[in-house]
């Protein structure tokens, strides 16, 4: 027997209260894990950006297009191995307009040389190259839309209005889990040829593969210098910076999620603090007995803090155990299948597990500081007189 064992046994005194407290705190941990996973999944694309790729966009914003012929000059810049271009099409499934997936008009001859993490069979690739109305879609999107090679599909344009018909020529998979497998790629020329003269030959951005990642900054500067004196100037940056730029559009939302996760933890701390304070109040007389038989104020404080650590540990373990089926297997799979463009890889990372458990224990300890301090400062004679 030792003080830790007594602290653990104290948890069984009021089983209902202990169970409800642990459940309440573990739901808070579950919510925290869910929000942290949303944040980390959102930044996955940026974290997994290729080091040897740079992106060039309009200097003002990536939503403003630039002349297509810029790519010819970029391909001539020393250090650029290959370059490809694309436009954000903004197409929707007419049957389910609320369904979100990325639709990109791309150059089929170069896209897979630059984006080599996308896997497509040579036969499907060849088929697509020869079919101007062809499209290649990710396997997750194919499953969501119920499409297979050979099917026809119509996109409803928002930036480029109208109904756009496509033949599904290939279904791609990916070499890495962080790659969005819900994108709809089609020929840029199919889109361009259908546009009025005033909108023709404009591209959204250019992605280039470079031969030395260490020279990314120099090559980017060299590209931008070419267009310094032109009407449309460019901003070239690493792929990571480009992805972070996309995320910047939703930075307020990310900050809000951060704040919510902190609020959730504070609520959890208050739940734990209340339970610990109630337990201490009820057991004041027992602490008086412990003091009377020779335990020091510090021993009494340690006793209470130990009990809090137990509650925190149990809450953390239960919260994380619930997170696996709910966040990773349930919500995570659904998001990957239905919102793969935003959450290509929605899994709880090791850091979040450690943080969840650490915070559960840490906050329980913090919540116990005031009750422990009060109990250890009680006069023994007063504590012995106290009736629970």
């Amino acid at each position, binding site marked *: 027997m030792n003080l830790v064992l007594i602290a653990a*046994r104290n948890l*069984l005194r009021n089983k209902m209260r202990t169970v409800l407290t642990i459940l309440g705190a573990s739901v808070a941990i579950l919510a925290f894990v869910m929000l942290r996973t949303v944040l980390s999944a959102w930044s996955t694309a940026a974290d997994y950006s290729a080091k040897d790729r740079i992106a060039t966009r309009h200097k003002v914003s990536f939503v403003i297009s630039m002349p297509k012929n810029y790519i010819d000059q970029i391909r001539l810049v020393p250090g650029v191995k290959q370059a490809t271009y694309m436009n954000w099409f903004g197409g929707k499934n007419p049957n389910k307009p609320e369904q979100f997936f990325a639709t990109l008009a791309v150059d089929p001859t170069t896209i897979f040389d630059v984006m080599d993490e996308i896997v497509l069979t040579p036969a499907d690739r060849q088929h697509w190259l020869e079919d101007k109305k062809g499209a290649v879609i990710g396997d997750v999107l194919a499953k969501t839309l119920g499409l297979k090679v050979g099917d026809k599909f119509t996109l409803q344009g928002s930036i480029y209005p109208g109904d756009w018909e496509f033949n599904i020529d290939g279904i791609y998979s990916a070499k890495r889990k962080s790659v969005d497998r819900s994108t709809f790629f089609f020929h840029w020329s199919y889109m361009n040829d259908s546009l009025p003269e005033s909108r023709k030959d404009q591209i959204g951005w250019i992605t280039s593969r470079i031969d030395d990642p260490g020279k990314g900054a120099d090559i980017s500067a060299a590209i931008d210098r070419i267009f310094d004196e032109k009407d449309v100037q460019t901003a070239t940056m690493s792929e990571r910076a480009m992805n972070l730029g996309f995320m910047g559009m939703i930075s307020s939302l990310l900050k809000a999620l951060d704040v919510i996760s902190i609020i959730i933890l504070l609520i959890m701390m208050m739940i734990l603090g209340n339970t610990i304070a109630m337990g201490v109040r009820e057991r004041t007389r027992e602490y008086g*007995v412990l*003091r*009377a*038989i*020779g*335990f020091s104020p510090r021993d009494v404080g340690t006793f209470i803090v130990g009990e809090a650590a137990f509650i925190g540990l149990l809450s953390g373990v239960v919260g994380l155990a619930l997170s696996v089926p709910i966040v990773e297997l349930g919500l995570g799979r659904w998001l990957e299948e239905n919102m793969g463009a935003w959450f290509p890889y929605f899994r709880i990372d090791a850091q979040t597990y450690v943080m969840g458990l650490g915070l559960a224990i840490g906050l329980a300890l913090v919540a116990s500081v005031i009750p422990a301090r009060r109990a250890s400062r009680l006069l023994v*004679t007063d504590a012995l007189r106290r009736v629970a």
Partner: protein
Amino acid sequence: MEPSIVELKGITKTFQRGKEPIVVLDGLTLEIPTGSFEALMGPSGSGKSTLLNLIAGLDRPTQGSAVVAGANLVSMSDGELAKFRARHIGFIFQAYNLLPVLTAIENVELPLLLTNLSKTERRERAQTALRVVGLEERMKHYPRQLSGGQEQRVAIARAIVNDPTIIVADEPTGDLDRKAADDILNLLERLNKEFKKTILMVTHDPHAAERAGVTRKLDKGQLQ
């Protein structure tokens, strides 16, 4: 004549109630010889428990000197007083005050957690103490599974397990029926006679006081 184990001189204890000071013990002097069994009687509010608390090192006098088991309690810090209690004092409370989450033997073992004894030694000592109070067969029982008299016997085992110099008992039979009270008083008598323990017992019960060798009466903060 045995030497005194408790030497109190000119003890005054004053409590503040709002702005008004209440004198509970008023210049009290007391000597208790080693190995005696003394009863302390007096009306409610006479200062019995306060005196017991001072002797046990739970409280300090406002004035005067208190030497118990050779230790000057007045000059001790809180930590030193805690060590003093662990080494020299065995407590018996009216309401037993056992920890409900611990079995009888674990309750008895509790004071030994403050010693350097091994787990086995602690267990053996606790078993011996329970044997002395006649409850060895109930050592795995929780307090809720014991009668009031049995609980008090476990509390006595807890009080003697660390072989204290003095046993202080505050109304040890106050919550018990006559039969159980007699058992407890027999046990205290045995501890005093057989094991030579000095016992100071606060009681309202003249029948209990008769069992002690000496009965002292306290009234208005002074010994009569």
